[in-house]
């Protein structure tokens, strides 16, 4: 028995395990990624809304304070505005940024030093009039921003600017026009550097990614464990099946009573083993029976020859002996032929060349041979046809079937007996052919075994028969999808009833392998 190439992997990743694991991890990763991205997007949106609200409040405050200046001083000149703030500084001892800060102090929820906002006042040409704040923006308002603000009254946007000491800063700006008497008079701008906000978001991103990685690792490990636990019985089955050879087909897989999929798999394997074992046993039995069956004629042949060789014989005696030996060899040849036929019928699996065969004319043509066969025992053979029918069949095999049945009947019928062959074709589905003899009948104990290979009934005479005839009958009936029954009325008659279908049905795989 050669080993089949079986992958040697045992504890490692079987391909199913790997597939399940990869799929599981991919689903987890996708879920976590969507979830984290949503969380991140939500927080980012919230932070920017807060930033915008803060900028809005501060710009509104600055706007209001410039308006106050306009209504109280009625002055319009830029120098006047600077003077206003300067005067303010002088009066209170604080500079412009302190004024601006005081206007928005109540709005600030975050510590001022973290936000480092800057405030600017421009004239309508974008020229810087006054400024305050922690960093130095370029002197004048860019013309594009100026145009937007003069058109819409206000603008909120993020951009990068290079401040006066050459560093690039990402900022968010709220730029507003200061309106008085339905026209724009000045432009105020509040800038917030976005660096702290961005740093906050980077931290959030890092935390989220770390969490995704940790969760993925933990759940993957758990998933791997689950897959392993689930597939453990499969591993057991594989190991067990690997150990099963033709010489230990009695082994069975262990079954639990839970009826799950894996249990069903094991059960199916056990059923298959059962069938294999039976078929192996049957093969073994056939080979054993065959060797015994062939040894019998060989023994007789040898016995005859050895007895004859004990002394010189006349040519006539040798001729008789050789004729007898040829007859015995013919016996051996018939056994081998029949076995070959059985093997062919077994392996054909029902795939034979089938043609429409007229049963009535086939049986009529057999009667000649049957009568010759029956002559030696003075047995009469009669054929009755009730109707006419064709069946899909292999002509040669069908002839063999009925010849074997008639041959069998001749053997078991005493001299002067009667054999009848009856064809009934009244059923539209099937044709029934009976071979009836008035021999002694068959005891009930033997009925179930007569189709077994090499089985011989009690009354069989050795030498005439070797128990393959009825096995061949059974095999031929099977390949024609028919049925055969034996009814026996001991002491009166024996009936072999063959039923053949008029149409072949398509065989299912399950039937072929059952």
């Amino acid at each position, binding site marked *: 028995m050669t080993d089949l190439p079986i992958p040697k992997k045992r504890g490692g990743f079987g391909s199913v395990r790997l597939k399940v694991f990869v799929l599981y991890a991919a689903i987890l990763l996708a879920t976590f990624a969507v979830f984290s991205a949503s969380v991140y997007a939500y927080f980012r949106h919230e932070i920017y809304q807060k930033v915008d609200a803060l900028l809005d409040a501060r710009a509104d405050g600055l706007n209001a304070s410039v308006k106050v200046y306009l209504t109280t001083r009625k002055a319009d000149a830029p120098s006047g505005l600077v003077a206003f703030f300067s005067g303010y500084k002088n009066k209170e001892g604080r500079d412009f940024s302190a004024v601006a800060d005081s206007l928005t102090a109540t709005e600030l929820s975050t510590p001022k030093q973290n936000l480092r906002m800057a405030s600017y006042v421009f004239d309508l040409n974008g020229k810087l009039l006054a400024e305050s704040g922690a960093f130095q923006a370029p002197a004048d308002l860019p013309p594009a921003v100026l145009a937007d603000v003069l058109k819409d009254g206000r603008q909120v946007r993020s951009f990068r600017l290079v401040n006066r000491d050459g560093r690039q800063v990402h900022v968010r700006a709220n730029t507003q026009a200061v309106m008085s008497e339905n026209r724009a008079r000045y432009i105020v701008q509040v800038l917030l550097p976005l660096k702290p906000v961005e740093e906050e978001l980077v931290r959030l991103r890092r935390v989220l990614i770390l969490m995704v990685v940790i969760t993925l690792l933990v759940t993957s490990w758990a998933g791997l464990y689950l897959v392993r636990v689930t597939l453990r019985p499969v591993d057991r089955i594989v190991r067990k099946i690997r150990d099963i050879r033709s010489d230990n087909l009695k082994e069975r897989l262990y079954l639990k009573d839970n009826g799950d999929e894996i249990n069903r798999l094991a059960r199916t394997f056990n059923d298959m083993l059962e069938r294999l074992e039976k078929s192996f046993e049957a093969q073994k039995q056939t080979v054993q029976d065959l060797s*015994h069956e062939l040894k019998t004629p060989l023994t007789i042949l*040898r*016995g005859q020859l050895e007895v004859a060789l004990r002394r010189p014989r006349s040519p006539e005696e040798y001729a008789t002996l050789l004729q007898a030996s040829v007859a015995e060899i013919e016996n051996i040849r018939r056994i081998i032929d029949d076995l070959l036929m059985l093997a062919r019928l077994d392996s054909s699996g029902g795939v034979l060349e089938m043609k429409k065969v007229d049963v009535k004319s086939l049986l009529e043509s057999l009667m000649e041979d049957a009568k010759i066969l029956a002559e030696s025992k003075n047995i009469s053979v009669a054929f009755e046809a009730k109707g006419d029918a064709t069946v899909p069949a292999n002509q040669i095999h069908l002839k063999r079937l009925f010849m074997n049945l008639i041959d069998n009947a001749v053997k078991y019928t005493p001299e002067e007996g009667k054999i009848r062959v009856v064809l009934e074709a009244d059923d539209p589905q099937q044709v029934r052919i009976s071979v009836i003899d008035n021999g002694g009948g068959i005891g009930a104990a033997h009925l179930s075994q007569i189709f077994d290979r090499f089985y011989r009934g009690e009354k069989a005479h050795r030498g005439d028969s070797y128990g393959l005839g009825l096995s061949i009958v059974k095999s031929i009936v099977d390949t024609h999808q028919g049925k055969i029954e034996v009814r026996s009325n001991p002491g009166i008659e024996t009936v072999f009833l063959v039923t053949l279908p008029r149409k072949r049905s398509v065989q299912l795989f399950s039937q072929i392998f059952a």
Partner: protein
Amino acid sequence: MLKIVESMCRSGIFKPDEAIMHKILLVDDDPRIRSIYKMLLELEGFEVVDAEDWDIASEILLKKKDLDLVLLDIKMPGYSGDVVFDAVRLYNPKLRVVVSSIYPLEEQKRLILKADDYFDKSSGVKTLLQKVKRVMHQPVSGA
């Protein structure tokens, strides 16, 4: 055909090598085998009674108590070999039993444990004669 062989055997000059006529019961369901062995053993000076099945054989065993040896085919329809063997020993414990069959010898020994000898029919009539004569000179093992 068998008649010819019989006549050939009878015309041969075989002298009984035993002063006393030993009696052998030959049990075999094949008529050709029975006929060949009977001729052979009778020409060797044995008295041979033959039986084609166990029913006839058991009747003979019950009636004839002066048998010396049984040549017993253990493969006969209807009975299993070991049961028949045990029955022979039960009917007549003094009887020598040579198991005769077409099974190989090892298989015969596995099936029947305590026979006086075992004979594979395909090994030829010379072997049969040797075995029968040797067992006749031995004391009965089953007694």
